[in-house]
């Protein structure tokens, strides 16, 4: 699997994502945001961080980077695109995913492990999970409060495009399990075609027992597996 990790000015999870892709056998390459051309890549990863310092609005400036035109073309052609944290924000700003990430309802940066429920195990990002499985994954963001208009939310739910939700240890979508106020406890969604996933939690930080969790590994192996079988 040839994977492009896009680095924007201010990205700071690009290295972590690069290492995660390598860990599952991916052939990862950094692409600077001013470079062009994603031909030959099997998947594109948009890392977390603070592209352009989150000035103006998280992801609002990065989406105008030259390479984003290529990312959009790549996604529209059905190529798998994963955006994590700031990457999710950029995907929303670029229109590849609906909705927006608002300031956390605590108005503070939130950094801790959260529990996620896998809502669907039949996407190319979650095939190696079981539906209903509970994952332990770190979050670290100030603007992760997912919002969309009522119509969009209904569509996301009706089409089963919510892939991860914040839950408590019992697997329930309670308010106290929701770290940022996201509507419907949404932690990650896909586009209609299912080839673009945006999520606030960091699966690339849950790849080793030493660091606290291995629950992120299956997301990356799922991508590798889907690409091999497609």
């Amino acid at each position, binding site marked *: 699997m040839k994977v492009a990790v896009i680095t924007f*000015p*201010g990205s*700071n*999870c690009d*290295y*972590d994502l690069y*290492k*995660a892709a390598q860990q599952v056998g991916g052939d990862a390459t950094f692409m*600077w945001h001013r470079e062009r051309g994603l031909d030959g890549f099997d998947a594109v990863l948009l890392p*977390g*961080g*603070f592209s*352009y*310092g*989150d*000035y103006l609005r998280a992801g609002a400036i990065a989406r105008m980077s030259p390479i984003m035109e290529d990312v959009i073309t790549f996604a529209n052609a059905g190529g798998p695109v994963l955006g994590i944290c700031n990457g999710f924000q950029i995907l929303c700003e670029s229109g590849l995913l609906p909705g927006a990430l608002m300031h956390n309802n605590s108005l*503070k*940066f*939130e*950094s*801790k492990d959260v529990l996620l429920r896998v809502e669907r195990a039949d996407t190319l990002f979650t095939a190696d999970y079981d539906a209903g499985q509970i994952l332990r994954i*770190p979050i*670290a963001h*100030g603007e992760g409060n997912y919002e969309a208009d009522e119509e969009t939310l209904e569509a996301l739910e009706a089409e089963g495009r919510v892939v991860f939700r914040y839950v408590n*240890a019992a697997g329930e979508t309670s308010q106290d399990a929701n770290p940022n106020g996201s509507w419907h406890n949404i932690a990650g969604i896909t586009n209609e075609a299912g080839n673009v996933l945006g999520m606030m939690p*960091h699966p*690339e*930080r849950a*790849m*080793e027992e*030493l*660091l*606290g969790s291995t629950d992120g590994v299956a997301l990356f192996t799922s991508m590798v597996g889907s690409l091999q079988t497609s």
Partner: protein
Amino acid sequence: MTNPTAMQVPPREGDPEITDEVVADHGLSPDEYERVQRIMGRDPTFTELGVFSAMWSEHCGYKNSKRLLRLLPTKAPWVIQGPGENAGVIDVGDGYALAFKIESHNHPSAVEPYQGAATGVGGILRDIFTMGARPVAVLDSLRFGDLDSGRVRYLFGGVVSGVGDYGNCVGIPNVGGEVQFDRGYEGNPIVNAMCLGLMKHEDLITASATGTGSPLMAVGARTGRDGIHGATFASEELSEDSDESSRPQVQVGDPFTEKLLLEASLELIASGAISGIQDMGAAGITSSASEMAGRGGSGIELEMTDVPVREEGMTPYEILLSESQERMLVVAHPGREDEVRAILEKWELEAEVIGQVTDDGKFRILENGNVVADIPALPLTEGCPTYEREGIESEEIIALREMDLSEHLIPEGDLSKSFLLLLASPNVASKQWIYHQYDTTVRTATAVRPGGDSGVIRIRGTSRGVAATTDCNGRFVYLEPRTGAMAAVAEAARNLVCVGALPTAITNNLNFGNPLKAHIYYQLREAVLGMRDACGAFETPVTGGNVSLFNETDGKAIYPTPVIGMVGVIDDVSKITRHAFRNVGDDIVLLGTNTGEFGGSEYLYVTADLVAGQPPSVDLDGERALQQAVLKMNHEEVLNSAHDCSEGGLASALAECALGSGESPLGVDVELDEDLRPVVSLFGESQGRILVSCGQEHTDTVLAIAARFDVPAAKIGSVTDGASGFSMKVRDATVSTSMSDVADAYFGAIPGIMDAPSGSEA
């Protein structure tokens, strides 16, 4: 080299005349000004006066601390770079070196907590990456007044956001630190930030200007009028009106630019196009340029009109003394300026040639080709007068230390309420409210996050890790400075061995009041002596640090607070020990002895509003043996947990072990047999004690290892399930409570104060 004399420089048009008052405003005494005149062989120009003022401020010149700092041990075979550079560097094995340093931003944080703290983090990151190391972890050591003050809550909240936002944005995990709340810090919060950076040995670069004719380049952000005279400001006492009038001396941080500067600097160093690089930190271009010249034994010449500026009409004086953030001074190899520019351009930053290295030993400043300052460089950087003053202990503090505490030792019977009260004190309570605002896991290397005894960063591609902690109990230092400083070093070392790290070296941050006062100078000297003894005993040399004096508001000094930032090395990260109990049925073993002193304890502060009494003594040989014993237990893999006993004493330490991160608390059943008053057994903060747990099959081994190192050890109880609650018995007293009450007290305290709807007035 003979000292060159200054050339004649006519006064610059528009500059103020130098009067006694102007000299005094620049923080120079009449004697010091005479010394300037002697060095110059004439009166300095206004620009030159500004340069001397900054370089001879306490912040840059260490004039009241240098002679004492020379007493500290600084050498060991593993020390690659000792004091004097941007950061200390030690060998950590497998070809890796660790750069680390701590720095204060107390004065700016007292005035503008968010920016003050943020720029403190920015500065310490730059000190690390200018050594060629990639920053891998940040720690923050904070002190505030009591949280019942709205002003203190504002400072605390602002500082935490500032530390968090800056590090989060740059993408450096915060792995630990400490915070203390005490009225002793009411007007002067302490904000110390520490950074660790990793590099391969061959990537080390230093900040010296060598090679006559080599171009000097200003890199990164443009120079503006912010922070002018910050270094001088940081070397004065604050007064009631400081927070309004001093705001222009506080810089504004831009972590996004810092991130770009970080990447660009590491790329520059890797390119080989430069021979030296230094942060323009305190005293800006002045200190970076003159220090690089001083270290290189060279001279430098800078043209002010070539410095990229943010605003029109800046005078040489302003440009030289600006503390605008996110700027670097780089010495390029001649002819490779374009390579430097190209790297900076890639990272969307600027690099401009602003001068060159000379061989005449002068710090020379030009404006449109006209000389406006011409100062012998070495006397400027090394000739700062240093003072050794008379130190006398304050009678008031002697009386406090000798106070009879017996009336406070009476309580016995059911002490559960005192226990919960203590756990809910912000000094003991969980600091999750703080570190949940810090990114702790970015860079995917954090093996032990904040909340443990030490933070641990693993070194990818090896089995190794580095651990770090910051420690100091200012109350102990206040009551008896030498003992208190030893305790700070000892606690730091205990925190390292608890995770399985060998204590290796320290960086220190000496936060004190006004050293011109005899009782403050006494504290400073005694604390340095205590540190010297402890660092010597533990073989943890001092590789650098920071001195922050004049931490006083309206004549009231902070507690003397020599913060110790200690680093340690872990050979095998798979053997890391954590502080939380793991299994029901494990034995709990207490290593070390309660020596009975009760002075300066959190219990006295919480129950009697008292900071008094004899603080715990420190037995350096006993501490060293304890460290070795715990490391041996770690290597033998017989421990399931290890945790230092500090604020709140044994009872609080047990609660922390039982609670862990709070997700699935276990219970505690402990019975103590000590010949001490119950409150002292439960809540005394005697040094030299570590609480470990182990599977019952390993208890004999644990006790045997302790015996081999002559460390007192006793099985005091066992880990029970959470439903069994928290139970301690000691002679005529008990503590008995549910774990949910323990958890509520411990985890609820700080959020209860800071997130309460009416609790945040700003």
